[in-house]
């Protein structure tokens, strides 16, 4: 792995069912994530995806592309745009630093708007053993 190497792009859509599942699993019952009426009354276009669900999806795709037992050790994201259910989401990661056994990635999650909905950086610790590629 080298600086500038990219993982992905990975694409995914979040369904309304997934929003409800995530709300239950995360114990986050803010109605803007499952009740359109409440969301609209607050000036939103309708229900929006939990920022933390997007953060979890980015980590999921990065870890799925790395060796088993790779661990996230430090992760920071900025939530910049709202994400609606069923939007096509594109997740990208590029290697921005290597400090064996740690690798840093710059990450983005782009929805259907012009600018990324989530940007951040994620540091993983690779498992002991031969470095991939």
């Amino acid at each position: 792995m080298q600086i500038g190497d990219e993982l992905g792009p990975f694409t995914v859509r979040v369904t309304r069912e997934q929003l409800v599942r995530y709300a239950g699993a995360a114990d986050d019952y803010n109605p803007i994530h499952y009740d359109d009426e409440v969301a609209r009354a607050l000036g939103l276009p309708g229900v929006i995806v939990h920022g933390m669900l997007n953060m979890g999806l980015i980590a999921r795709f990065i870890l799925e592309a790395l060796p088993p037992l790779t661990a996230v050790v430090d992760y920071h994201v900025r939530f910049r745009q709202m994400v609606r259910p069923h939007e096509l989401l594109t997740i990208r990661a590029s290697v921005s630093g290597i400090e064996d056994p740690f690798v840093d990635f710059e990450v983005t999650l782009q929805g259907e708007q012009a600018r990324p909905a989530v940007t951040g950086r994620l540091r993983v610790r690779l498992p002991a053993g031969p470095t991939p590629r």
Partner: protein
Amino acid sequence: MFRIDRECLGEHSLPETREVERGAIRKFAQALGLANPLHFSSEAARAAGFRDLLAPPTFAITLLSWNVPGVQWPAEGVIHGEQTLRLGEPICAGDVITVSGWVDDVKSRRAARGSMHIVSLVSQGFHQWGQEAFWAKAVLIVTENEEAPHADRR
């Protein structure tokens, strides 16, 4: 209604314990569409050297406490602006995590109609044997709208 007492900045909430259940890990992993057997099969997790099912990285955020000294959160209108998560010793099913939280910074400014507060909420969780499990910081944006002036108000 949102209230914040600046004298309480940095004051930690009373520690609360969270028991990490297998079902909670499985449901969380399922909600994110994860397929890694470490989150679903205790046998697979133990074979890989974990105590039991491994929690996905962002599971830690579900353990944190919003009930921190000096803050009364509004019923609505809190926007999640940023999130930092540092993970230490892995969180597994059966672990008991002791969590406390505090506000480490607040910036307030006038907005178009009311005021805007940027609140940094920090949480820390420790395993029952003392090792740090996570440190998390959420940057939350709270907007308070003043009621629009009413025409017939004297």
